[in-house]
């Protein structure tokens, strides 16, 4: 009782597991498990808002699928961003292209030179 009373003051920042979160939203938890989730909600506004918001999503929607899709989109966007950054790097530093072109020209010139004067 002593400990429980003092627990009221806790401000736990503990992470809630995604599966627990989804099970709570769809009402699949036992009263004891639900109480544990609710304690995290009362301690942490982020968790509380997340639960209230997820309860606004139409029942029956696969929340895990929604989150996976968002994660996949993020990966795609990041990969694209990285590609664009590398492209821009080439544009911003044209000397790289110039150096490559110069080396190629030198190779061709050397080849032609050697072909023309094979005895050198």
């Amino acid at each position, binding site marked *: *009782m*002593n400990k*429980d*009373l*003092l*627990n*009221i*003051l*806790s*401000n736990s*920042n503990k*992470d*809630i597991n*995604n599966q627990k*979160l*989804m099970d709570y939203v769809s009402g699949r938890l036992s*009263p*004891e498990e*639900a*109480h544990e989730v*609710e*304690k995290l*909600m*009362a301690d942490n*506004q*982020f*968790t*509380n*808002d*997340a*639960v*209230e*918001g*997820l309860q*606004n*999503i*139409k029942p029956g929607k696969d*929340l*895990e699928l*929604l*989150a996976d899709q*968002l*994660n996949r*989109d*993020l990966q795609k*966007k*990041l990969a694209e961003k990285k590609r664009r950054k590398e492209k821009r790097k080439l544009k911003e530093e044209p000397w790289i292209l110039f150096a490559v072109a110069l080396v190629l020209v030198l190779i061709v010139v050397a080849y032609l030179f050697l072909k023309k004067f094979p005895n050198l």
Partner: protein
Amino acid sequence: MLLQRYTLMLLGVCMKYLKNEEDAKDSVQQIFLKVIVEIEKYKVDYFKSWLYMVAKNHCLMRLREMHGKIPAELHDSIQAAADEPTLQSKVANEHLFGLMQEALSELNKEQQQCITLFYLEKRSYQDIAQKTGFSLMQVKSYIQNGKRNLKTQLEDAYRKSLEG
């Protein structure tokens, strides 16, 4: 990636404020990108709290774009989220226990009833709603407001004990 652990929670927060699934999904994407850019600029010590702040600010901006103003309750909750001192470290537990009992008895009847059922009897919101006849939203708000009042009262008592 650490960020992806919070995707579902971010979707929830965006749904709470924007109340539209497509808007919420777009916002989660925008928050992701914002976080990736911003985290390189600042030193972030408490990632989770910081992430929540970024997400909430983003939703408020979206609401402002859509409606031209922010509902008053959102202002309040942002301020409430900012102050989180740990009282337990300030006052010795024994003394605190006495103060807690006193503070609890000074709460209004509804808050006292809900706090007792929730924290001491470990009942779920649903159970408490059935037992008391309050709605789920009422139960939740009695618990959250009761908890806030308890903290305020204890902080006052602590301040007084320092002065006296």
